[in-house]
C-alpha cells in the first residue's frame, strides 16, 4: 500500500521532535485547566446524586481514566502496527511511549472503580464482572508489552516482536467496550455514547464532559512529553540531534 506524502513527514524524527516540543506546553496548559475546572465542578458545584449521594463523584474520574486506558491501547496498537508494516521507527517510539501511560491509567481506572464499588455495590472487586476482568487483562497486556520489550537487548527486535503482541491484544478493547451489552452483570450499560439521548442530567453531564476532554488532552500531553525523550534516546548519535545540541537546546 502506498502512503501519502505527508505521512512520511510524520516519520521524520526531527520534525516530530520539534512538533512535540511546540505542542506539549499547550496541551499541558489545556489539560490542567480542564481537569482543575472539571474536578472543582464535579466535587463542589455539582449536586449530590439522588441515589448514590456523594460517592458518585468518583464517576468524574473512573470512566474517564478507563476511556484513556483504552485509547492508549488503541494508539499503542495502531502505531506498533504501522511501525511493523511500514518499518517506521518513529511509530514504534510512539507505541513505547503510550504503554507506561496506558498501564498507569488502567491501574487508576481499576482502583477508582473499586473505591466506588465498595460503597455502591458492596464490594471492592467482583471476579464475575466481565468489564472488570477485561480491564484487568488490559493492564496485563500493557505490562506484558513492556516486559517483552525489556527481554530484548536489540531495540529493533524488541520493536518488531512487541508490536505483534500489541496488535493481537487490541481485540480486548472492543470487548471491554461492549462487555456491558454482551453480559448483564454489575457494570451499568452505556450512558454517554448514546449521543442522541444521553441518560445523564445536564448538571452532571457538563463536568463529566469537561473531565473526559481534560483527560484526553492530558493523555496526549503525557504521550508527546514521553515521545520527545524516546526520540532523543533513539536518535542519540544522529547528526540532526547532535547539531541541535551544539546550537543550544534541541
Amino acid at each position, binding site marked *: 500500500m502506498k502512503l501519502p506524502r505527508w505521512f512520511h513527514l510524520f516519520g521524520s524524527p526531527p520534525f516530530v521532535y520539534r512538533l512535540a516540543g511546540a505542542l506539549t506546553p499547550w496541551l499541558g496548559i489545556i489539560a490542567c485547566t480542564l481537569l482543575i475546572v472539571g474536578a472543582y465542578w464535579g466535587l463542589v458545584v455539582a449536586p449530590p446524586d439522588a441515589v448514590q449521594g456523594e460517592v458518585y463523584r468518583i464517576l468524574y474520574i473512573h470512566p474517564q481514566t478507563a476511556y484513556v486506558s483504552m485509547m492508549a491501547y488503541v494508539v499503542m496498537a495502531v502505531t506498533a502496527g504501522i511501525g511493523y508494516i511500514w518499518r517506521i521507527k518513529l511509530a514504534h517510539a510512539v507505541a513505547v511511549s503510550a504503554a507506561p501511560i496506558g498501564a498507569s491509567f488502567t491501574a487508576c481506572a481499576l482502583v477508582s472503580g473499586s473505591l466506588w464499588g465498595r*460503597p455502591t455495590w458492596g464490594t471492592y472487586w467482583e471476579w464475575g464482572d466481565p468489564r472488570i476482568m477485561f480491564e484487568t487483562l488490559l493492564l496485563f497486556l500493557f505490562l506484558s508489552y513492556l516486559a517483552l520489550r525489556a527481554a530484548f537487548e536489540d531495540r529493533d527486535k524488541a520493536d518488531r516482536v512487541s508490536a505483534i503482541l500489541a496488535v493481537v491484544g487490541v481485540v480486548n478493547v472492543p470487548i471491554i467496550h461492549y462487555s456491558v451489552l454482551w453480559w448483564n452483570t454489575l457494570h451499568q450499560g452505556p450512558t454517554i455514547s448514546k449521543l442522541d439521548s444521553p441518560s445523564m442530567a445536564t448538571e452532571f453531564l457538563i463536568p463529566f464532559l469537561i473531565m473526559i476532554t481534560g483527560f484526553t488532552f492530558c493523555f496526549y500531553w503525557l504521550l508527546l512529553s514521553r515521545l520527545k525523550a524516546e526520540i532523543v*534516546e533513539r536518535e542519540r548519535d544522529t547528526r540532526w540531534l*547532535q547539531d541541535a545540541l551544539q546550537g543550544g537546546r534541541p
Partner: protein
Amino acid sequence: MNEILSMGGHGAYVWPAYGITLAVIVFNAWAARRKLAIALDEARRSRATEQPRNQPRVRQLQ
C-alpha cells in the same frame, strides 16, 4: 469545607480515588521530564566521547 471533605461519609472513597489519579498524572509528567533529561545528557556525553573538543566535525565516508 468539612462537608466537602466528608463527602456525606464517603470521603474515604472519593478523596483517595482523586488522589491516586492526580498522583498518576504528576508521576507520568515527572517521569517524562526525567527521561528526557537523562536522554539529552547521554546524547551530549556520546558527542563528548566521540569528538575531542575544538576539532572540526568531519563526516566519515563509509
